[in-house]
């Protein structure tokens, strides 16, 4: 009798396990796998899906991007509130890395490592990656931060309660709490300018064309052309954030 019970429950278990596995596989097949192509799979095809490119080979560290961003978006001028900034990495001959970002690069860079000690040096301009699967959006407890249908991560300033979860969640350090509004603040890819068919302020003022933005869905756009012509990389790909900021010539020292 006891033996019978075990047998029948085993059969039941195998049956239900097979059903569950079959259903999962069927669902996965129906919903087609979620590969990250250009950061995401867009839903509304009539809208652009914005991405950004930064060409490290072209960046000269003039800091105009950081400066213009503060002016365009009325970002507080204290040297620790930035929507975008520039870092200088200097790899020395002994292998150690020197990283500086005086006032986010706005005041310009002064080379502080003597030439003979330098193995290589480069600038990395940083800003919001406008991730398609952004960690900052996922931790927001009130739905104040979201990915717009155009692929821009925005903050609803009227809805934000200033809890700072998102500031900690962003692996790229792109968020801060606005000292006056007391809510989270970040790069909007100059959403107000994009809507007027103007380039974001940092892209407008970049003197060397190191910064590129564009519609990833439009195969003729500047950005898609840049992606085709260069070997690009996103920051921290291991975190699978779906970052849409593509660096050319990104060195592994970059953090």
């Amino acid at each position, binding site marked *: 009798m006891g033996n019978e019970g075990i047998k029948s429950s085993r059969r039941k278990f195998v049956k239900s396990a097979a059903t569950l596995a079959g259903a999962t596989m069927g669902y996965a097949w129906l919903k087609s796998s979620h590969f990250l192509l250009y950061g995401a799979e867009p839903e509304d095809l009539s809208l652009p899906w914005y991405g950004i490119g930064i060409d490290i*080979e*072209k960046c000269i560290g003039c800091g105009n991007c950081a400066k213009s961003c503060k002016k365009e978006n009325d970002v507080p001028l204290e040297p620790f509130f930035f929507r975008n900034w520039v870092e*200088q990495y*200097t790899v020395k001959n002994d292998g150690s890395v020197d990283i500086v970002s005086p006032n986010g690069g706005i005041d310009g860079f002064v080379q502080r490592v003597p030439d003979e000690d330098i193995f290589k*040096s480069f600038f990395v301009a940083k800003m919001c990656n406008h991730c398609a699967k952004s960690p900052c959006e996922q931790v927001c407890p009130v739905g*104040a931060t979201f990915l717009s249908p155009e692929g821009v991560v925005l903050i609803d300033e009227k809805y934000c309660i200033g809890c700072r979860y998102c500031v900690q969640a962003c692996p790229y350090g792109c968020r801060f709490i606005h000292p006056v509004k007391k809510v989270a603040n970040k790069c909007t890819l100059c959403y*107000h300018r994009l809507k007027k068919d103007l380039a974001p302020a940092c892209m407008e003022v970049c003197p060397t064309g190191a910064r590129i933005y564009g519609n990833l869905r439009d195969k003729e756009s500047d950005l898609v052309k840049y992606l085709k012509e260069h070997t690009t990389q996103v920051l921290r790909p291991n975190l699978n954030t779906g970052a849409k900021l593509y660096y050319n010539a990104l060195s592994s020292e970059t953090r």
Partner: protein
Amino acid sequence: MKFYIPPQIPRLALVFGIVISLFLLARHFLIPDTFGKYGPYRAAAMDDYTQLEIHYSGQQACFECHQDVEDLKATDVHSGIHCETCHGPGQKHVLSGEAADILKPSDREFCGSCHSLNAARQQDAIFQVDLKEHNVEKECIDCHNSHQPWEMKE
């Protein structure tokens, strides 16, 4: 067989019904109109951003009046640089036309923000000078026309 319902069940159901409908009513009034239009957020927040004022006008607005500078710039290496890179945000100047509303930087440090020597600047990407040695007593624009840097002034 008749199903026995304890008398407290209908009373509890009534209380539950009232509480749930009060909750739904409050929810209806507390949730903003556009919440959930595209996702779990307030869609009107995007309109709030759209209505923000611009400060940088874009260089097409500059060329409406300054056609001469466009022609001058096109002849030399600064042709790819947009006006507001050096002159700062121009929307106020576009609207007012006042010279006071636009920057005209002239100091060596400003030019140096791009052109000073730095190991991180690639030699072929930008022309660099050592500000400590190159004509120290002069301003850059004493010799160079910033719109046409290789046409030397007398």
